């Protein structure tokens, strides 16, 4: 039996859930299809960074749009998502790195973006008292922060459902096809049909795009994270390094999340990842050197979520270059969580209004068209 809806959203990550929610706010009745459960993969298990800091320029407008939503997240989803805003700080470990920071901030200012602010050693020490004395400064984005990713993704899912979205979890979207002007998708023994299809399937989105004739150079990756036992409170902002792979966040309960992008081996078909402890040891060494207070903390758990990374580290976001009614929203390349709320809002505008005020032109799938590569 086929059910007609207004839109089919494939993928129950933060992006699919946010788009479904915003479509509901625009008066549409979407169906959200998730093969596992909402937030099962990268959206539920990422570092939870809510970061405008250090983003690629083409996605900054989307990030700023998203930040406005994050700051009122409770009003949107009736859940605070454990969002807190103590800023994010990029630490330069030497003068060369600080020079690069200075150039970056100047570049952004020239483009009209003011969210990144160069800081000297004194301000760095004020924000991050535990930073090593040798660090000469860095960059801060003061409105940034962090949230609980699984709580956030499920809050979006829950709110979308309350507003009228149909949420199908535990069965994959299959047999995606276009006929008689509608997109058709099978889910188990049910079928849905709609004029709009949103491909927000994360690590699984590349194969959907390819099957619809729009292949994208995208790979499946699994960035690793680890969390420590509780240590006395010593740091508020999220800290990332300019020169080394490290991100660092202490939660209210004292536990510390250590990330930075070292990769596990994904086994996508099994929903599994195998951790690379030798790379995690590198992260541990960096923390050991920079934050002596952490040395006796114990590592409680390490994990990795499966997601998609594009060749140019930018998302594929916007209408299909080939099919009417098809929209892509994937390939966020390890930094999609903060973008989720804003991307859903913009996607709903694209679908409902046919356009948006938020500048997203450089994120389209057409950049990977054979003629432009």
């Amino acid at each position, binding site marked *: 039996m086929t059910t007609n809806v207004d839109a089919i959203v494939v993928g129950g990550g933060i992006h699919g859930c946010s788009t479904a929610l915003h479509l509901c706010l625009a008066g549409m009745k979407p169906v959200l299809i998730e093969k596992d459960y909402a937030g099962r993969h990268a959206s539920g298990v990422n570092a939870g960074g809510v970061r405008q800091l250090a983003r690629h320029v083409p996605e900054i407008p989307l990030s700023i749009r998203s930040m406005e939503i994050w700051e009122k997240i409770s009003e949107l989803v009736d859940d605070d998502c454990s969002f807190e805003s103590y800023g994010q700080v990029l630490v330069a470990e030497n003068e060369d790195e600080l020079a690069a920071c200075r150039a970056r901030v100047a570049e952004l200012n020239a483009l009209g973006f003011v969210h990144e602010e160069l800081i000297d050693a004194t301000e760095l020490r004020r924000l991050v008292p535990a930073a090593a004395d040798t660090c000469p400064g860095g960059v801060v984005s003061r409105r940034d922060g962090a949230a609980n990713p699984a709580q956030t993704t*499920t809050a979006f899912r*829950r709110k979308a459902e309350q507003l009228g979205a149909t949420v199908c979890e535990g069965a994959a979207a299959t047999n995606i096809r276009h006929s008689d002007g509608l997109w058709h998708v099978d889910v188990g023994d049910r079928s849905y049909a709609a004029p709009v299809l949103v491909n927000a399937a994360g690590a699984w989105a590349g194969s959907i795009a390819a099957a619809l004739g729009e292949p994208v150079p995208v790979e499946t990756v699994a960035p690793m994270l680890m969390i420590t036992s509780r240590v006395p409170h010593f740091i508020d902002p999220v800290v990332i390094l300019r020169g*080394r792979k490290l991100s660092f966040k202490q939660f209210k309960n004292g536990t510390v999340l250590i990330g930075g992008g070292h990769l596990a081996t994904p086994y996508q078909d099994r929903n599994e990842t195998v951790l690379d402890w030798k*790379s995690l040891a590198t992260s541990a060494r960096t923390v050991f050197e920079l934050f002596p207070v952490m040395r*006796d903390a114990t590592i409680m758990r390490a994990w990795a979520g499966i997601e998609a990374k594009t060749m140019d580290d930018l998302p594929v976001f916007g209408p299909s270059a080939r099919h009417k009614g098809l929209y892509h929203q994937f390939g966020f390349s390890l930094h999609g969580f903060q973008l989720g709320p804003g991307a859903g809002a913009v996607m709903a505008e694209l679908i409902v209004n046919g356009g948006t005020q938020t500048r997203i032109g450089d994120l389209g799938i057409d950049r990977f068209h054979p003629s432009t590569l």
Partner: protein
Amino acid sequence: MTFAPKREDYDVVVIGAGPAGLAAAATSAEAGLSTLLLDENIGPGGQVYRAIASTPVIERNQLGADYWVGADLVQALRASNAEIIQRATVWSLDRNLEIAVSVGGASAFVKARRVIVATGALERPFPIPGWTLPGVMTAGAAQTMLKSSALVPDGRTVIAGQGPLLWLLAAQILRLGGRINRILDTTERGNYFAALPRAFAFLTSPYFAKGLAMMREVRAKVQVVPGVTELAASGDGQLASVSYVAGGKREAIPTDLLLLHQGVVPNVNLAMAAGVEHRWDDLQLCWSPVLDQNGNSSVAGIAIAGDGAGIGGAGAAVVRGRIAARAAAEALAPAAAAKLPPMAALRGDLVKAERGRIFLDTLFRPARQFRIPSGDTIVCRCEEIAAKDILDAVAIGATGPNQLKAYRRAGMGPCQGRLCGLTVTELMAQARGKTPQEIGYYRLRAPVKPITLAELAAVPKSEADVKAVVRG
């Protein structure tokens, strides 16, 4: 002094030196396979033969003849070429058969062609009101003190629960001069009828005569209250009294020490973290790995032996260890395997060792009210999450234990779900009208036992250190 593994690669790595691990390592070494046995404790023996090589208890009958069987297993292993490392904590095992092990504060990585996981059992959680009070402990913890240090309780002591180990512990405490004021037996009356059809096999099993004698010995000295249907510990920051209902009558007794026990369940953490498929066992009410008849799991190269493969007791564990090791030898060194006892004989031994198990499982199946708590009773001790908190999370959309982690942090503390996992699964299954199998379990990840950041930082460097900076 502690020693790191001598090599980086082994034919067979056995994890755990309880009955299954001791037997598996000896068999593997006997077949000429390079064999490494890693064990977390100070000495071999696991829980059932804990401190077998060092116990200060010399009177053999105090710990019982079954305990001393462990000495023969240790002797056989020590006579072999197996490399044995004690105080070696395996904190990671993955599907590539890479093992991370911490010895003496330093971690090493070894690779195996076959891994035999023999991590045994742990006690089933017993989440009654007040179970987290100081003065309440598990019977297993009491037994550890008894075997390692000959320590027995001398205050007002109550033992509550059910199962063969409860009676064994009671007998051991009494023989060593310890004090037990009362035993509160929580075995459901209906279980006796349910178990009856299985009784014949049990009557012909080795458990029967020994079990009966032990119960008689304990009953002669201690008041045993049968049919306990409610149980609670209370006190102000310290256990002061235990209240219970039996036969519809409520009673409270002043108590200094309450020992709880309602059976043991497979210790699944390492195998689950390695990706081994587990299924809910409806009779034993726990997760058990999916295994073939040689103990091979869903992950190629990983076999599981002993109680970690499903509770079977020490005798069955020894045989399962031999079977898993023989299967490894057949795969890696077929000629040498031919010299080992034939598989058919081992399977015969296993049938004998497992006889009567279904009867015990049925008789000692713990009652629902002692497995699935309600209200303010703590479920997750590490994060202090009560039963009602979990139901609240279900109400706002948590569908399984992994979503619960996001809502309440249940299972995310130092015990990594060992003390709450089964309770959470059953509680959520009940609340959502699903089976435990449908609800599932925490996705477990390494480190299976915590290691310090400093120790991880000291791990030798890899080539992957220099890579483009990517951030999440």
